[in-house]
């Protein structure tokens, strides 16, 4: 049964020049959207080290949202392209590790798109809520012989 009280924690890395300004503008415009994102401002989506994303998952995030400038709009010319290239491989790593696609998302949101920011956040929160908590942890193992037999039998 889905946990109806579950509120996902989503770490959002927003670039200083576009998506962060969109979030700012959404606030000024008094748009209401899901309060589940924890925004971390970075100067450019090209600054988002894959380590940041994997660390966020490892330390308890249920989802990670990356927001950057639209193609051709990067303040540093090609930072968002670097982000796009890394995202492809990062997504595949996450998939191989068992992290569902909806938990990791890249969106281009310009400073003028406060409304789009609201839509994206609401949509992502809904999808991650449906997936349930990620609860990343490596279980502390105690060895039990009976359990092994059960596992292999199943």
């Amino acid at each position, binding site marked *: 049964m889905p946990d109806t009280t579950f509120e996902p924690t989503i770490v959002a890395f927003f670039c200083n020049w576009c998506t962060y300004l969109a979030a700012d503008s959404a606030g000024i415009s008094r748009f209401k959207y899901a309060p589940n994102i924890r925004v971390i401002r970075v100067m450019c989506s*090209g600054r988002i*080290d*894959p*380590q940041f*994303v*994997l*660390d966020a*998952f*490892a*330390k308890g995030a249920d989802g990670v949202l990356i927001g950057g400038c639209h*193609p051709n709009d990067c303040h540093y010319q*090609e930072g968002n*392209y*670097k982000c*796009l*290239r*890394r995202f*492809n*491989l*990062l997504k*595949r*790593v996450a998939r*191989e*590790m*068992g*992290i569902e696609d909806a938990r990791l998302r890249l969106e281009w949101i310009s400073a003028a798109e406060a409304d789009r920011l609201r839509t994206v956040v609401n949509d992502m929160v809904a999808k991650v809520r449906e997936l349930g908590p*990620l609860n*990343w942890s*490596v*279980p502390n*193992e*105690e*060895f039990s*012989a009976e359990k*092994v*037999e059960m*596992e*292999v039998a*199943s």
Partner: protein
Amino acid sequence: MSKPKVAFYWCASCGGCEEAVVDLNEKILDVAAAVDIVLWPVALDFKRKDVEAMPDGSIAAAFINGAIRNTEQEEMAHLLRRKAQLVIAFGACSQLGGIPGLANLSDRAGIFRTVYQETASTVNPDGVIPLTACQDNGRTVTLPGFYNTVRTLEQVIAVDYSVPGCPPTPELLADAVQALLSGNLPPKGTVLAPDHALCEDCRRKDSRPEKLTVKEWKRPHQVLADPEKCFLAQGLLCMGPATRSGCGSRCEHGNMPCTGCFGPTSRVRDFGGKALSGFASIVDSNEEDEIARILEFIPDPVGTLYRYSLPASPLRRKKMEVTTHA
């Protein structure tokens, strides 16, 4: 004065690290003259009970290679920690999890199914799997318990130093022994190898273009690599930029790109994440579909980027589907 005592032990490893000790060649005589080897299962007949009988802290240094994936290895790690003043994680498996660490993409049930039931060469009609105890002619036969997750040595016991490599070079081992004997020791936690990227020492580095871009990756068996030119400039995936130096560029001398066995430098926490960052960013395209096509070349990103370091990465293992007991 009695000689300092040294122990060598192996956990989940292939035996290659033992080769590194043997590869000291005649220098091993100097080592043997300077220290008393009190445990070395691959070569000497000392047993666990011999170590148990020694006073705590009486071994000067224990070199432990291999990752920890069963109960016996874990017990031996704790025992050696108690008996030794210094514990050195020797080799990639011990330091970062190594190749056995890729088992963290599966779990015990998955591994047992593959190894004891599903592989084409397996004949096992009774479905026998390793048990920790079973009866045989009235006697009880025991085996160590096998964990779901492979761990680095440091995830099990406190480790004083690490020596990287798959395997470490004899030179690094000789330096480490020398440092121990002289008492001239670096701060605890130090990795006993240079702390800069392999590219810095690479004799091909001048052939690396100012702006490196790759339109098409190639695998080593698909091309005859130019022996003078930077591998990355040839479209060969070389881990040199992300990998710690100290190996003497053995692979490069054999005209093979680096696979990253020396792990990261001290400035990087997650080797695979950093390598991913570097390789993806030099892909020569701004189109989503083309980027995907170029990167399809890497069929198994975790196996490539985390080849030696999955258990030491932030995520450590693939998500376990079944929730386990607390």
